[in-house]
């Protein structure tokens, strides 16, 4: 097997940065155009706008495949009286496949996870931990929200869920901007003082170095993911209409597992790109340390700017003119 040349390593690091650019516009799930998002209570003073819609989109093969799988999911999601164990197993496996495909499209916090894993040195298993944490929070928030709102007012469940989703998605972006600002300040402080930790990706690291590097990743991922996935909301509402909320929750958990695989892929891609870059620069310790500090600061700067930009329509709608 022909070993790669240094040039190919650099190509991969460039590819990783290119990927980052691809990720930039891909974050929110978008609002349902059919739903007004207005509160069930009449005369609500504030009508929250959704965050910016996703960008990389179009009627591609993935969309058609997703709809096909989702319709299949609906076909085999039958009331308990008609269900067989094989049908229930098929339901969960289909939800898993749907989750994997669903998260391939724009949204689901791949941008955030990718940026974080580009900015920090992490252990090999951490992309999976962050990916499944993000997907779990994303799906879990849908379950929590539906159960809560159903208890409060079952007659306006759809509207209230849409409304709450807008607040949560906008809120997570604002929180992400705040968390990113704190990390950015820390990274810049280290960069200016020249205290940044050194990276010897090809060498022997102490666990402490890595632990310090991954600090905050999970908090950030969790902060970013605490809003409901529209796919999970639809499955739960559908299961409610069948009187099968228990199986709806199980299906959403499997959906989250599928999404977790995809988000893990994004994190793994960033981590591998970063590793490649620092492996290349490993012999030049000073340059690598400086680059690491700059990369970390740049990633947080991007994260803060991106979050504010995405949240802008939502944030501005909270303060209507006049």
């Amino acid at each position, binding site marked *: 097997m022909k070993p790669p040349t240094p040039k190919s390593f650099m190509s991969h690091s460039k590819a990783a940065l290119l990927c980052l650019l691809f990720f930039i516009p891909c974050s929110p799930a978008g609002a349902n155009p059919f739903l007004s998002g207005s509160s069930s209570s009449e005369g609500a003073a504030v009508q929250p706008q959704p965050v910016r819609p996703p960008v990389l*989109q179009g009627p591609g093969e993935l969309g058609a495949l997703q709809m096909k799988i989702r319709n299949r999911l609906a076909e085999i999601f039958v009331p308990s009286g008609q269900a067989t164990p094989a049908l229930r197993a098929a339901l969960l496996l289909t939800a898993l496949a749907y989750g994997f495909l669903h998260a391939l499209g724009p949204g689901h916090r791949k941008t955030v996870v990718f940026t974080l894993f580009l900015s920090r040195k992490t252990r090999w298993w951490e992309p999976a931990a962050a990916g499944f944490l993000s997907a779990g929070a994303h799906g879990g928030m849908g379950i929590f929200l539906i159960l809560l709102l159903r208890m409060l007012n079952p007659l306006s469940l759809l509207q209230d869920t849409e409304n709450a989703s807008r607040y949560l998605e906008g809120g997570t972006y604002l929180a992400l901007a705040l968390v990113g600002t704190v990390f950015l300040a820390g990274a810049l402080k280290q960069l200016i003082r020249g205290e940044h930790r050194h990276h010897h990706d090809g060498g022997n690291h102490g666990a402490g170095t890595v632990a310090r590097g991954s600090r905050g990743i999970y908090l950030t991922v969790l902060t970013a993911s605490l809003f409901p996935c529209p796919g999970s909301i639809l499955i739960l509402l559908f299961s409610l209409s069948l009187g099968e909320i228990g199986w709806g929750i199980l299906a959403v958990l499997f959906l989250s597992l599928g999404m977790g695989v995809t988000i893990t892929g994004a994190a793994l891609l960033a981590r591998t790109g970063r590793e490649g870059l620092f492996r290349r620069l490993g012999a030049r310790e000073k340059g690598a340390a400086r680059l690491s500090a700059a990369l970390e600061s740049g990633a947080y700067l991007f994260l803060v700017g991106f979050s504010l930009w995405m949240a802008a329509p939502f944030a501005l709608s909270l303060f209507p003119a006049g």
Partner: protein
Amino acid sequence: MIGSGGYPYYGIMKIPKILLYLLFAAPGILAAHPHMGFTAAMEFEFSGDKMKGVWQEWRFDPFFSGSIRGSYDWNGDGRFDLDETEAVFAGAFANLKNYDFFIFYRTGGKTLVPERVERFSVWMEGNTMVYRFFVPLEVKDREIFLSVFDRTYFCAITYADPPAVTSGTTNLAPQYRRRENRDNPVYYNPLSPADDNTRYDRWAPGLETAYPEELHVTF
């Protein structure tokens, strides 16, 4: 030296290439991200030799159908009575005005969108919910190009087969033809907020271009 001596990195680096493809590098594959879908059937209404408008009949996917039924069929009888229909209209349809009801049509050399729709009704056919409503059209020619298109791509929209039929009293025999018109795209700003319904007549930097499949009607 990097990469020498059986260094395993080369093998590892093959994985990102696959991920690159899956996650980013195939725009046609990764692009779409619909969360719901419906099939649009159309019925063009004529009076004499004039086209009055078009009836839209949208059949929704089972998940969205179930969501609406679960939220608005308050008495659980599987039907939408007058109050429930009004609630569906207000809560799960009227907002489409901000999206031009997903309808674009071109007549007399101009692209137009409906200002309003009329006679909205909703019912269930098994697990499928159906919306039906009338769209008045200002037709200034003997032909019209009409597309049903969600520029946010939240909805995957397909046309029924056949996509359109004729209704009303007329001796005309309108012809319906589906096509993708590459000469008359829809321009939209992908970075704008979801409530931005600005329509663009021509491409400008920053705008995306879509070529929705349209129905060419001649009569």
